[in-house]
Structure formats: structure tokens, C-alpha cells
């Protein structure tokens, strides 16, 4: 029997995290995995981070929201797929999820509302890097704890660097807790308490400059935000710890998604290393957008032969063009193989699934089905 790592993962795991560089088909892969889970009778949810309108319409939904929406099985019956279980889809809303987190950890409703109304806070969810990743993990934790689904498939934000995603919770708590920040904001928060102000001349000089650059009200917002956040750090930290434990546990599996392009292979290699170092469970590697390979060995005609064919009759000229085309594609295929060889040193090939550049287009129900067949073998 041919061993398929994806089938193994789907049989045993509750959380499947699809990670990799941007533009390699993570969202589509995640959706195809969730669809397959549903096809196998599970209650499956796909949580996407991308504002993937195209995915929504492929699933027959007007839009995806922060709450799970059930996908009508009719969409798939039309594409020739029997879905025995259920497929649900949702899209992360960073701001709403963050609001819920604040509500949960704030000592009082008043304080929560003050934080949520603060301008600095409002900017965090849209500007601060790492927030989206953190909230994605938070949402995932919530969905899992809720127990409504047998399996949750999530794609990760299109971060430039896979590192960002793994480090997000720690980076965000660092950001909130930085000593440097307090050192700077301390005199500001205690403005009027003359002694304190004088105690830290460097800090006030610093603040004066900042104020000149961004304006005083911006600084007020910042100080107010951090003052309100006081006392909530422990809650954040504890939750970050729980999320980390869940990701490391044996209910979770990471699927690395890549294309054979040099930069995404580089990122996938790096990510595989990081998973390993961080003790996170690696499940499979999906290589999307692989150019297909036809024939065993390159034909490798001599330039002299090609030249003579190109000078010949109609058939000879046709053959010359076909040979040139074969040669050109071989170059691409060989380059891809070379790129992937580097990855093979990190991830054993029996954990790989290759999804060739499909000649049809991927983002509709039939496309998801085609990808699913590549990932899990043909539908029974």
C-alpha cells in the first residue's frame, strides 16, 4: 500500500496548520484539506487568514466572517463530490478577536472599554506586525476548546518570514512588557510628579523629540493604553503558553506548503528547521505548482541537429520547435528539482506530496476537488 502522509494526518489530528511563504497556494491547500476531511465524514472547519474572497465564492459563500459559516454540500455534489460530514469556513478578523481577548483579561468592563476605545489600541490590530499571527492562534485555540469541530485547518498569514509566525505571541508580549517602553513612558504617565520627571532627564529629552515628531496627543494615547493594560500581562502570557502547548501537542500537525521556486523553498527549509528546533509536530510537505515532467530522460538533441531540422521541410521544422520546447521545459523542471534537493536534506521525501501545475484552474469546487485528489489520492 502506498503510504500517504496526508491521509495519516487527516486520520489522527484535530488541528492542521498550513504554513509557508506567500503565493504558494496555502489557502487553497487548507481548503482542499478541510474539504477532504468533510468528505470523510468529519465536521471540519477551515480558518483562513487571507481576505480570500475567491475562496468564499468557490465555497458558494457570499463572504467569510469571524464566525464559522456552513458550506452547503450542494456546491460539491455539483462538482461530483459526496460530502458526508460538514465543511465550515471562517476568516480571521484580527480586531474582533483582539477585542474578545481584551474583554476576557481586563479586570473590569470599564477598563476593557477604555482600552478598546483607545487609538493606539485600534492601530495595533492593523499595524503592528505579529498581531495577526497572535490572533490567528488565539482564534484557533478558541475553536478547538469549543469542541464543535473534529478537525480545524488553518492557513498562516503571508509573512515574509516563517519565523514571524512562530514568534508572534512572544514578540507581542515583549512589546507590551518592554522595560524600555516603561522607562520612556514612566515620566510621561507621572507627569506633574516633579521628582520623578527630574529623575529621568534622558527619558524626557527623548519624549520631547518624539512629541515633536508625532505630536503630543499620539503620546497621550500611547501612555493611556499602557496604563490601562497594567495588570493584564499575566493573562496574556498564560494564554500564550497554553496556545504554545496546544501547538506542540499530538493533536496538532504542521503541513509546510511551498512551490519549487528558490525563495519559497528557502523559506520552507528554514521553516522545517524551526519546527524541529521548537518541538512542533511536522506532518507533511506539500509542493505546489510543480511543472510536470514528461518522459524519463531529456532528449538532448545536438545544436547541429536542431539547426538542420529548423532548415528542413514543414515536418522537420515542427519537430525542431517541439524539441526546443522540450528542452526549455526540461531546464525549468531541472531547476525545480535542484531547488527541491536542498529541501530533501531537511524533509525526507516520503513526507512529500507534489501537486503539479494543474492545467485547469484551481479556485473553484472542481479545482479544490482536483487538488484534493492530488493530496489524498483519487476520491474513492
Amino acid at each position, binding site marked *: 500500500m502506498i503510504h500517504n502522509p496526508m491521509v495519516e494526518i487527516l486520520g489522527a489530528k484535530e488541528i492542521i496548520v498550513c504554513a509557508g511563504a506567500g*503565493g504558494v497556494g496555502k489557502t487553497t491547500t487548507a481548503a482542499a484539506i478541510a474539504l477532504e476531511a468533510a468528505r470523510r465524514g468529519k465536521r471540519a472547519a477551515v480558518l483562513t487568514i487571507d481576505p480570500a474572497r475567491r475562496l468564499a465564492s468557490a465555497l458558494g459563500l457570499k463572504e467569510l466572517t469571524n464566525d464559522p459559516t456552513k458550506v452547503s454540500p450542494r456546491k460539491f455534489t455539483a462538482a461530483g463530490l459526496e460530502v458526508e460530514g460538514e465543511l465550515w469556513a471562517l476568516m480571521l478578523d484580527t480586531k474582533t478577536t483582539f477585542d474578545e481577548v481584551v474583554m476576557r483579561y481586563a479586570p473590569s468592563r470599564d477598563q476593557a472599554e477604555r482600552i478598546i476605545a483607545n487609538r493606539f489600541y485600534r492601530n495595533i490590530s492593523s499595524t503592528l506586525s505579529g498581531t495577526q499571527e497572535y490572533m490567528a492562534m488565539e482564534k484557533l485555540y478558541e475553536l478547538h476548546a469549543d469542541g464543535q469541530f473534529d478537525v480545524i485547518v488553518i492557513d498562516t498569514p*503571508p509573512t515574509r518570514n516563517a519565523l514571524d509566525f512562530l514568534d508572534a505571541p512572544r514578540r507581542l508580549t515583549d512589546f507590551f512588557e518592554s522595560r524600555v517602553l516603561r522607562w520612556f513612558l514612566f515620566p510621561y504617565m507621572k507627569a506633574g510628579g516633579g521628582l520623578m520627571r527630574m529623575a529621568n532627564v534622558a527619558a524626557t529629552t527623548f519624549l520631547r523629540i518624539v512629541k515633536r515628531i508625532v505630536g503630543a496627543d499620539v503620546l497621550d494615547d500611547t501612555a493611556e493604553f499602557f496604563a490601562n493594560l497594567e495588570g493584564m500581562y499575566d493573562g496574556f502570557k498564560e494564554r500564550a503558553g497554553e496556545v504554545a502547548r496546544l501547538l506542540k501537542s499530538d493533536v496538532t500537525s504542521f503541513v509546510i506548503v511551498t512551490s519549487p521556486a528558490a525563495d519559497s523553498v528557502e523559506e520552507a527549509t528554514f521553516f522545517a528547521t524551526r519546527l524541529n528546533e521548537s518541538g512542533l509536530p511536522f506532518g507533511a510537505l506539500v509542493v505546489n505548482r510543480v511543472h510536470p515532467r*514528461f518522459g524519463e530522460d531529456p532528449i538532448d538533441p545536438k545544436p547541429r541537429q536542431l539547426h538542420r531540422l529548423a532548415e528542413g521541410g514543414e515536418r522537420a521544422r515542427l519537430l525542431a520547435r517541439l524539441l526546443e520546447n522540450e528542452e526549455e521545459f526540461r531546464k525549468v523542471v531541472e*531547476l525545480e528539482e535542484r531547488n527541491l534537493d536542498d529541501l530533501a536534506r531537511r524533509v525526507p521525501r516520503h513526507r512529500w506530496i507534489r501537486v503539479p501545475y494543474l492545467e485547469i*484552474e484551481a479556485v473553484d469546487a472542481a479545482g479544490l476537488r482536483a487538488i484534493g485528489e492530488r493530496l489524498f489520492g483519487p476520491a474513492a
Partner: protein
Amino acid sequence: MDEFLAPRILIVAGKGGVGKTTAAAALALIAARHGRKVCVAEVDRKGSLARLLGGRTHLTYEPAELTPGVWGVNIAPEEALAEYLEVQYKMKRISRVFTSTHFVDYVATAAPGLKDILVLGKVWYLEKNRAAGTRHDFDTIVLDAPAAGHMLQFLSAPMGLSDAVRVGPIRRQAEWLVEMLQDESRTRVHLVTLPEEMPVTETLETDAALRERIGISAGPVLANAVYQPLLSKSETKLFGELADDGSLDELCGEANEVGLRLEHDDLEALLGYARFRDARRSIQQKHLKALKRGVAQPVLELPFVFSAGLALPDVELLADVIEQQVAAL
């Protein structure tokens, strides 16, 4: 070509993975070929720009000559801030505090868009030949902009900042940047895309937003990695007949004539690759059509480069193609 290179700032923008950096490199080469002293800039990223232009190291904040006439820089917001403080406030030492901590993160969160403004500010400095400590006077600045979603945020940052900062030097400078971006004689954007569904959809949205929200002038769109037709009309017909009759092996005779032996497997390969290219090409043509229908400016088609890893000669070739197509506009 003079018209094409008229604005001193060329911003190359598009979704991640569409070949933005390659396009930026090609535009930089073209400008250099026409006697411009060019600075090509990437933003806060250690990308492939240097390698594509034949340079050996990563780009730094200091311009370095990559190929004759083309210098490269990497603009990190932290360094741009340090330079800003140095020029504006003569603060060399304290600026290290700003760059060494979370500081830029805090301020950027407090005043979103500040990072982007710092980067655009550096472009402005380069345009005005005022970059601290350098004696470069660049004629053309090619900016490899951040990926599309972020790009609109990036280019609209100077406008957005006026909401957070109502007075002071930063406010004034944000206004200068808005002027720079909206002046079509100074700045032009080239969108880069792939002839595929999602990239084209996104390009159309970005194109509309650039005009409506930012008021920036847009030059020809660059459609990347377009498969060229493999066969002429008569060759296609002949190929179709042979394939339909299952008589492709007649080609083996032609091969024998020149001393080339083709096995059955080889014929399969020839057929497979030809059909793959044809299938991809017809998908691409459909999306190119939608792209051309959707944008007002011309669409330049860059050929798919069959290469074992892009390098300077490939970029030279793409530059040739762009020049030919621009000349024909």
C-alpha cells in the same frame, strides 16, 4: 522612451511572487542604457535585487554600484529614521536609542504609516539629492515597493498621517511626500502582475485604488511570465493532424534524417510539454484579455524565461523586450 523615463521616480508594485523585483531590475537597466544614473531601492528586505543585477552582496542603506550606472539600496525604516534625526535634529548619538529598541514599533503603532513615511522620505531625499553623507545625484529612482495589499497602505501613508499628526515638521514633510507622489512629472507607478486569475483581479483593484485613493499616475502594466506561442498556424494544424491520427511517430523519420534517435517515450515528452504549454497559454491569454480590458494604460508582456535561475543576462533580455514594446506604443 524619453516619455517612459520622464518621471524621476518609478515605483514598481504588485502582489508577492509576480516578479516585481525582476521588473524593477529591468526598468533600472533600461534607464541606465539611456544614460541615467539610476538608484534601485528595495524596502526593508533582503531580496534578490542585488543578485539579479549582478551584484555580489546584499544591499545596504548605502548605495552600492551593482552594474555600470545602476546603484542599489535597501531602505530600512530604522535607518531612515536615524538619518532623518541626524539631518533634521543633528542628533547622531541619541538616534541609536531610536533604532536599537522597539522604538520604531511603538511609534509606528501610535502613528500608523510612520514607517512608510520614513521609507518614502528616503526616496524623497534621494530625489532631492540630499541623502546624508552621500554624494550621489541620481537621475532615476526605481522603487521595488512592498507587496500589493500593503502597497496601498504604503503609498497612502502620507495622506493618512495627517489624521494622527496635526502639526509639526512631520506633518509638513508628509505634505511634501503627497506632492511628490501626486505629481505625474515626478512619480509614476508600474503595476506588475502574472496572467493568472488572482493576480489580475488584484491588479485591477489596485489600479483603481491608486487613481481614486492616492491620485498617483500609472504607467504601462507589466504582465510577467507570459508563454509565447510555440507553433505557427500551419505548424499547429500539422501537429494537430499528426497527434489526432496517432501518427506522431512519423516525426521519428525526420529525426533519423539528422541522426537523432527518438524513442516512444521521447514522443510522449514532446507531446506532453507542447500540450502543457498550450493549456497554460490559453489560460494566460484569457486573463491577459481581462487585464487589458480592465486597465486604461497599455499592458506590456514579458516572456516566460526558461532559465536555470534568473541572472543578469535574463534581466537584460527582459529589458530589451520592454524597450521594444515601449517603442511600439
